[in-house]
C-alpha cells in the first residue's frame, strides 16, 4: 500500500533495517504506483534531439529498449570512464566499509538495503567489474561482477531515481566517494537508452524553447512582473520599477522560474523586488534567461551545458557587469562547480562589486555571479537596510540548509545572519541534521513529481523528523529555506509528517522586515496576512 494511503505511523512500521537474507545480486524491483516516475512523451525528446524516443512506462514488462541497448550502455560506460577520472576512481576505491549506509535519507525512510549509497553504487559497479576489470572478467560473481541484463537496467532506473544527488553520504565517506556522481553517470546511461523521466525532460525542453522550466513566454513574464508590482503597491503603497531585457543595466538578476510562478515562492519574489527598489539597484531581468535552475543537470552534462549557456549569452548581449542569482539550489551547484568548464570563463564580465557597499565578492571572481544571500547579508552587515524584525513575529523560524547550497557551495552563515536580523525568533534543528550534514527535502534532482509521492515522503522523513523536534521543543511554525524545489516540495512533506509548519524563502522574511522610505503603515505581511498586533486582538 502506498505511503499516502497509509498515514505516518503505519509507514514507520513498514521500515525494517534488519539485513535481508537474500543475496543483493537478486533482482527484486517492483514498479508499484508511487515509486516510479512517468516517462517523457516522444515529442519532448525529439525537441531536444535526445536518443531513442518511444512510448513506454516503467511499470510495463517490455521497455522496448533499442536493439543494441547493451552496446550503447557499455560504450557509454567506456567513454565516461575515459573522460571522468572521478568515475573510475569511485568505482575502484570503495572498500564497502558501510560508513555511508545509514546516512542516506532514502535508506532511513525506506529500510531498503539497495538505498544504502554503497549498495546503490554497487548496482553499477558490479557491471563495471564484469566488463572492465580483469578480476571480474575472470571470476565473475565471486569478484562481485554481474551480467548486464534488462533487469539490471530496470533496477538502475528504480534506484537511481531514489537518489536526490544530495551528497550527504559523501560527507561521511572516508575516501570522499561522491555517490551523486555515480547517480549522474547512471542517469546519463539510462537516458542514452531513452529511459528518462518526464519531470526532468519536460522542464528542460521548455527552458530550451522558451527560456524557463515552466514555459512562460516573454509576454507572460511581463504580466507576472506587473502583478508583483501591484502586490507590492497594495502592501507598501510604493510603486517599484522593474525592467526587462534592459541593455546596459549594471546587474542581470536571474531567479528560478518557480519564484514568479508558484506559492510560497511568490512572496520571496516580492521580497527581492522590494529590496532592490529600496537600495536603488541598477538591475534587469531577462526573458531569455528567465530561469536560474537547470533541470538539464539531472539528465546529463550535455543538456546542463546547453541550458547553462543562456545565462551567459544574455549577460553578454545585455552588456551587464555581473550576475546576481536568486534563491535556487542546483543553479548554484552548476554555477559553482561546473559552469567554468561548461561555458566559462566569463571574462567578458567584471568581477562583482556591490554598488551599495563597495564589497568585492572575491569568491565570484571566476563565475561573476553572486548569491542573493551573500549580497543581502553584506548590505545588513554594512547597515544599509532599515529593518523591523517584529513584523515577522508570528513566525518561530528554523532554517533548512538546501543540499546544494551547503555541500556544493558552503553557504552556511549568510542566510542565518539574515534571518537573525529580520526575525526575532530563530531556532536551529539538531547539529547533525544541518549545515554540511543537512538532510535533503527528498524531492530534489528532478524526482519531485506527484506520482512519486511515496518515495518523496520516505526520503524526506529524516528532514521532517528534525523539524518535528524543533516544533515540539520550541513551537517552530516556519521552515525558511533558499531553494525553489524546497519551497515546492517541503509543504506537502511537512503537512504529512509534521502538520502546522509552513515554508518560506529567506527574502520573504527580508521583505516583511524591510522598512522602505515613504511606505504606508504596514498592516499585512507579504502573504496578505495581518501583522501580529493588527489582527484586532491588541496583543502587540
Amino acid at each position, binding site marked *: 500500500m502506498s505511503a499516502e494511503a497509509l498515514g505516518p505511523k503505519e509507514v514507520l512500521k513498514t521500515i525494517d533495517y534488519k539485513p535481508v537474507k537474500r543475496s543483493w545480486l537478486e533482482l527484486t524491483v517492483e514498479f508499484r504506483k508511487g515509486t516510479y516516475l512517468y516517462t517523457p512523451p516522444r515529442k519532448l525528446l525529439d525537441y531536444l534531439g535526445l536518443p531513442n524516443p518511444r512510448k513506454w512506462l516503467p511499470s510495463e514488462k517490455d521497455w522496448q529498449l533499442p536493439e543494441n541497448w547493451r552496446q550503447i550502455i557499455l560504450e557509454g560506460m567506456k567513454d565516461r570512464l575515459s573522460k571522468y577520472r572521478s568515475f573510475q576512481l569511485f568505482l575502484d576505491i570503495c572498500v564497502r566499509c558501510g560508513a555511508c549506509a545509514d546516512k542516506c535519507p532514502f535508506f532511513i525512510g525506506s529500510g531498503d538495503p539497495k538505498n544504502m549509497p554503497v549498495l546503490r553504487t554497487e548496482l553499477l559497479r558490479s557491471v563495471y567489474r564484469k566488463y572492465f576489470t580483469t578480476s571480474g572478467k575472470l571470476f565473475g560473481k565471486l569478484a562481485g561482477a554481474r551480467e548486464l541484463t534488462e533487469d539490471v537496467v530496470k533496477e538502475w532506473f528504480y534506484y537511481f531515481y531514489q537518489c536526490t544527488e544530495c551528497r550527504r553520504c559523501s560527507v561521511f565517506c572516508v575516501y570522499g566517494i561522491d555517490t551523486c556522481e555515480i547517480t549522474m553517470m547512471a542517469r546519463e546511461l539510462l537516458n542514452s537508452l531513452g529511459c528518462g523521466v518526464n519531470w526532468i525532460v519536460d522542464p528542460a525542453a521548455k527552458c530550451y524553447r522558451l527560456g524557463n522550466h*515552466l514555459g512562460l*513566454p516573454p509576454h*507572460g513574464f511581463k504580466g507576472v512582473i506587473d*502583478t508583483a508590482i501591484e502586490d507590492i503597491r497594495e502592501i507598501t503603497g510604493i510603486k517599484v520599477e522593474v525592467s526587462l531585457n534592459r541593455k546596459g543595466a549594471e546587474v542581470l538578476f536571474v531567479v528560478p522560474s518557480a519564484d514568479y*510562478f*508558484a*506559492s510560497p515562492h511568490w512572496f520571496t519574489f516580492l521580497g527581492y523586488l522590494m529590496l532592490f527598489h529600496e537600495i536603488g539597484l541598477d538591475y534587469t531581468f531577462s526573458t531569455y534567461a528567465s530561469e536560474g535552475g537547470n533541470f538539464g543537470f539531472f539528465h546529463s552534462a550535455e543538456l546542463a551545458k546547453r541550458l547553462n549557456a543562456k545565462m551567459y549569452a544574455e549577460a553578454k548581449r545585455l552588456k551587464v557587469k555581473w550576475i546576481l542569482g536568486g534563491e535556487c539550489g542546483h543553479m548554484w551547484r552548476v554555477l559553482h562547480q561546473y559552469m567554468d568548464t561548461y561555458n566559462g570563463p566569463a571574462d567578458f564580465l567584471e568581477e562583482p562589486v556591490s554598488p551599495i557597499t563597495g564589497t568585492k565578492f572575491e569568491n565570484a571572481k571566476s563565475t561573476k555571479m553572486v548569491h542573493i544571500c551573500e549580497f543581502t547579508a553584506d548590505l545588513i552587515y554594512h547597515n544599509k537596510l532599515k529593518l523591523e524584525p517584529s513584523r515577522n513575529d508570528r513566525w518561530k523560524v528554523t532554517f533548512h540548509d538546501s543540499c546544494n547550497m551547503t555541500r556544493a557551495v558552503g553557504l552556511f552563515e549568510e542566510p542565518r545572519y539574515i534571518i537573525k536580523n529580520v526575525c526575532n525568533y530563530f531556532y536551529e534543528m539538531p547539529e547533525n541534521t544541518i549545515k554540511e550534514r543537512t538532510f535533503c527535502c527528498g524531492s530534489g534532482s528532478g524526482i519531485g*513529481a506527484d506520482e512519486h509521492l511515496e518515495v518523496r515522503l520516505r526520503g524526506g522523513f529524516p528532514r521532517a523528523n528534525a523539524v518535528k523536534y524543533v516544533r515540539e521543543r520550541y513551537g517552530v511554525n516556519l521552515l525558511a529555506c533558499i531553494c525553489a524545489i524546497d519551497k*515546492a516540495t517541503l509543504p506537502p512533506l511537512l503537512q504529512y509528517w509534521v502538520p502546522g509548519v509552513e515554508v518560506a524563502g529567506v527574502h520573504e522574511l527580508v521583505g516583511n522586515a524591510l522598512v522602505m522610505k515613504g511606505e504606508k503603515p504596514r498592516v499585512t505581511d507579504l502573504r496578505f496576512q495581518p501583522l501580529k498586533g493588527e489582527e484586532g486582538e491588541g496583543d502587540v
Partner: protein
Amino acid sequence: MAKILLGGMEIEVDEDGFIQEPERWNKEVAEDLAKIEMAYPMSDDHWKVVNYLRNYYLEFEIAPPIRMLTKQTGFDLKYIYQLFPRGPAVGACKVAGLPKPTGCV
C-alpha cells in the same frame, strides 16, 4: 496512453488523467473531469476559476502563476482548495483541460 469517455467523446489522457487533446475540451468534458476531481456539481465559482485558467492557457500555452489566479478570481488559495480538493495545479488545471505544470512547483 489511455482514452477515456469525456462529454460523450473518446479523449486521450495522460497517466494522471490530464487530457492530451486540449482543442476538444468543452463544457461537458469539463463537467466529466470535475466528477473525477471531486468538483462536481460545478458552481459559478468553479467556472470562474476554470474560465480564467482556460483563457490564460489559450493566450500563453501554460497555466497562470498561482498569484495571478488568486488575484484575478478574487479567491484565496484555501477557497480554491475547497472548490478543487486536489488544488489549482492538479484539480483545477485538469478540469480546465490544461497540462500539468512541471519543475520546481
